[in-house]
């Protein structure tokens, strides 16, 4: 129940939610489905919806931050065959746990967002791909779909408008890589989840070879709110010229881990304060600001930063998914990196040699250093192996494995050197003697 702490700064998606009031009737009493019904009643031109989303400044909340209106604009205008809309709910990047809460607490906002997006692109069939590990959420979402269908919001000739939209829930079964959009498509086609080369992008060659738009849960869930308040008003919710709101997931050594819905561009110290500051009053050492694949930043850098795409990119990392992992002064950075690297090694789909072999090398080198058997030249070797993965793979998992390594060495080299020189881990959190 991480999101019900009532400490969101500007809640839209999470306003007034208790965990029980997720049903269609509750959503309708909060003004839900009014936007979709208005669009149908007015037969709103598609372009107007895309314009509103453009004005909102909404960027993909799945991590890549691609402008949503631009992506929607890539879909063909008069495709003769079927086109698809897919909501990506495969969230499994360590440190990221917002989509699960959105789906649990406000599933109909996601459905209405999908309806509006589908209308705007002229799409009549959609799926939501839900991470297999959150089975209860998958079942609850199935119930939400049934409720919407019974209320005439999913199916044929919706509200007598002539617009059709069919929606089904699909579940994964334990593969992080299936969150990558083309692996997701393979998985939905009943195959192993191995990414495809891009281009062609899904907008031209998606599910069953048909034009497909894939958007993250959070991206779609904001669409009804943007239509209700207008794109400009939504954009104005952000701070320091950053448009809109964002959900940040705080985990690690903070007093109150959880999801916080705040203005984009909020300062990091303010966000940390919402999460109750540091747990047990310990000092902060480092922060991974955008999910486990984003480069780590030292505490001093973080405390000066605003939480938006450009500020974090300028500091050498990325906003990514908004999964903020906070590490205190007692954490061993070598041990933390070892954990991250093992994850990417386990989750590599094995198609590309640099990723398959490289992630294994990274793990064995870091393991050696953490266990006090590292050699001085290992640090450069480590950086080198990581550098050689980057940009040489089919999908971004290769980069995701390499970026943490390079940033940990860059900012915390002294800790790695200490392990090598003293042949042991200095921190309490490291391996026990």
């Amino acid at each position, binding site marked *: 129940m991480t999101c019900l702490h009532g400490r969101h700064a500007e809640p839209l998606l999470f306003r007034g939610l208790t965990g029980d009031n997720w049903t269609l009737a509750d959503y309708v009493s909060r003004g839900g489905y009014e936007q979709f019904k208005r669009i149908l009643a007015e037969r709103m031109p598609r372009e107007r919806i895309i314009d509103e989303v453009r004005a909102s400044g909404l960027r993909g909340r799945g991590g890549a931050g691609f402008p949503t209106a631009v992506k929607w604009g890539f879909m063909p205008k008069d495709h003769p065959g079927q086109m698809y809309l897919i909501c990506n709910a495969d*969230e499994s990047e360590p440190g990221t746990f917002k989509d*699960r809460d959105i789906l649990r607490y406000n599933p109909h906002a996601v459905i209405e967002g999908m309806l509006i997006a589908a209308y705007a692109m002229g799409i009549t069939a959609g799926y939501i791909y839900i991470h297999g590990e*959150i089975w209860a959420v998958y079942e609850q979402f199935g119930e939400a779909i049934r409720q919407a269908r019974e209320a005439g919001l999913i199916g044929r000739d919706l509200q007598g408008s002539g617009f059709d939209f069919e929606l089904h829930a699909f579940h994964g079964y334990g593969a992080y890589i299936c969150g990558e959009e083309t692996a997701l498509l393979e998985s939905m086609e*009943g195959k192993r989840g191995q990414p495809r080369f891009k281009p062609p992008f899904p907008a031209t060659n998606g599910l069953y070879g048909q034009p497909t738009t894939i958007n993250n849960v959070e991206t779609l869930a904001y669409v009804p709110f943007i239509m209700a308040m207008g794109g400009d008003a939504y954009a104005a919710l952000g701070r320091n010229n950053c448009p809109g709101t964002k959900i940040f997931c705080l985990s690690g050594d903070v007093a109150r881990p959880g999801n916080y819905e705040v203005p984009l561009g909020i300062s990091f110290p303010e966000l940390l304060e919402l999460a109750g500051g540091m747990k047990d009053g310990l000092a902060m050492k480092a922060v991974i600001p955008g999910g486990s694949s984003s480069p780590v930043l030292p505490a001093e850098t973080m405390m000066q930063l605003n939480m938006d795409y450009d500020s974090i990119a300028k500091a050498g990392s990325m906003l990514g998914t908004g999964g903020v992992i906070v590490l205190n002064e007692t954490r061993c950075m070598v041990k933390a990196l070892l954990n991250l690297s093992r994850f990417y090694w386990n989750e590599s789909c094995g198609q590309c040699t640099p990723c398959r072999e490289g992630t294994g090398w990274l793990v064995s080198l870091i393991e050696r250093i953490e266990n006090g058997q590292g050699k001085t030249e290992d640090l450069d070797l480590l950086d080198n192996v990581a550098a050689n993965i980057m940009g040489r793979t089919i999908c971004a998992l290769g980069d995701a494995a390499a970026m943490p390594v390079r940033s940990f060495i860059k900012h915390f080299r002294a800790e790695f050197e200490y392990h090598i020189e003293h042949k042991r881990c200095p921190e309490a959190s490291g391996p026990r003697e």
Partner: protein
Amino acid sequence: MLLSEESYRKIDRELEKFPPTKKRSAAIAALTVAQDEKGWLSPDVIKEVANYLGLPAIAVGEVASFYSMFNTSPVGKYKIAVCSNLPCEMTGSDQAAAYLRQKLGIEFGETTPDGLFTLVASECMGACGDGPVIMVNNKNMHMRMTNDKIDRLLEELKQ
């Protein structure tokens, strides 16, 4: 008829989600239904699912081996998966895992002699604010697992 009537009906409902020519899309869901009934996916079960979907057994077998929540060898009555990723590790998932190993007397990947419990390490379940996170039989997630809560959970499962 290797599976129960009910399981075939569930698979039929999954098939309705896809265009009639795209039965393969139901492979993950159909294997899940079969595993829920049988506990694990033996080669015979995989072949049966493939037949039912009109696919080569190898195509379905490849799916069963790719996705980590499928059991391609027998497991205990309860499969306990412990999330091992960084945010969970920072909340003590390795202590939770050590406690489970000690209590059950088995290592990761092993099953207790009474056939009741299998212990496996797993990856992020999207609940990183509430670690340590463990999951029972792929369906029931338990969060903030202290030793006490682990004791109670194991007691409940043994009932």
